[in-house]
């Protein structure tokens, strides 16, 4: 979920921008020039995937997939998502310039975390282990994003606590769906193009 402009306090915005700045700096260093088109096209693919609405009962949720981005791109997750969110801000007015740092951090940091925690599991040749790893990666990345958003709101002011709880609760069903979709996606990619998992930067 993208945090809108004008909500968070200055210290939170600055911390988010710093975190994303450092993450992007390290990520860019890891991307060699010949990898630029690859990261960019995957970033574009995930941008399009995030527009996909998945039915959930009478309503629908849109995919986030930051867990899978993390697994596939490792540290390059930061620049890839930064570019994606920047474009979303320009094209749809989702998020914005001042919240770009915070929003990127909220999605990319969990991606990098699940990359280190579950990357080896997902890469396992045994499909059960890979499946469990993929579910945890997909679900935990969302949970972590939700926790970060809630934390940032609470830090901005005590009166945002209720909103923080609501938003965290809204993340729970998304978490399950993301977990399932990530499992299915990983099994698809492993069958069709296993090389993709060997290419993380």
């Amino acid at each position, binding site marked *: 979920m*993208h*945090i*809108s*402009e*004008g*909500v968070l*306090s*200055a210290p939170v*915005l600055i911390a988010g921008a710093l975190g994303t700045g450092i993450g*992007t700096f390290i990520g*860019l260093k890891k*991307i060699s*020039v*010949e990898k*630029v*088109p*690859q990261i*960019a*096209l995957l*970033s*574009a*693919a995930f*941008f*399009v*995937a995030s527009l*996909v609405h*998945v*039915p*959930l*009962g009478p309503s629908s949720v849109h*995919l986030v*997939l930051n867990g899978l981005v993390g697994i*596939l791109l490792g540290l390059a997750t930061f*620049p890839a998502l930064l*570019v*994606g969110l920047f*474009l979303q801000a*320009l*094209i749809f*007015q989702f998020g*914005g*310039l*001042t*919240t770009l740092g915070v929003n990127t951090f909220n999605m990319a940091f969990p991606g990098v975390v699940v990359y280190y925690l579950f990357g080896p599991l997902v890469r396992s040749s045994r499909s059960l282990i890979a499946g469990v790893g993929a579910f945890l990666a997909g679900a935990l990345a969302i949970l972590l994003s939700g926790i970060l958003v809630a934390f940032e*709101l609470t830090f901005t002011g*005590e*009166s*945002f606590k*209720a*909103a923080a709880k*609501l938003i965290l609760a809204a993340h729970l069903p998304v978490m399950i*769906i993301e977990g*399932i*979709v990530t499992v*299915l*996606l990983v099994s*698809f*990619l492993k069958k069709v*193009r296993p090389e*993709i998992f060997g290419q993380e930067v």
Partner: protein
Amino acid sequence: MKKENSFLKSCDPRVKFVLALLYAIIVAITYNFSLLVLASIFSLICLLLSGLSFFYYLKRLGLVNLFLVFVLITLPFTTPGEEVFKIKFLSASKEGVSLAFLIFFKSNLIILTTTALLSTSSIFELAHALHHLFLPSKLVQLLFFTFRYLHVIEKEFWRLKDAAVVRCFVPRTNLFTYRTMAYLVGSLIVRSYDRSQRVYEAMLCRSFNGTFPVYHHFHLRKKDILFGIFGVTYLVAILILC
């Protein structure tokens, strides 16, 4: 939708980007109501100079996301203070209502102004501007490629979706639907990955040697400089005054 040749449309994207960023920062971090009123004068000027229609802005504001709704409906009830109204056992405070209003005002001001300043340039122009401002070239290249192939990949996705629809696919809340969605997205990822390799090869075939040549250069004209100076002065002035 866009009127041709408005002032902002012909303005240097670097100037516009700097102003948009400065404006967004100042408005985002303030809780001072009089500063917001002064800032809205700046917004109004930008709106008038943009040449974009009222309807266009309305559409943009309509997209204000779910997030703001969460914040706005909870704030009046969670902020302690003098009670103004009550819904069942929940009491809304005066302070809470005014905080909710302040955030709503700030959020919309920023959206309107950045739209006026940035939607009058194409994304490619903005990316060029960023290249000339301060961003590392690898990040700008990433931005270029992502935006360029966004369209290709989006069309690819709609064609795949059509292929599913033609074969009588109707999305529902079940595993079959989730699997189908995963296959569609997975296809997109695999194809993008393979295309990226062909794109890199196409670059090699045109003697790419590791540095991206830049073709376009911007030229600051007098009116760009004047607009920039006016904007920065005004924004800094209201920040100091309030």
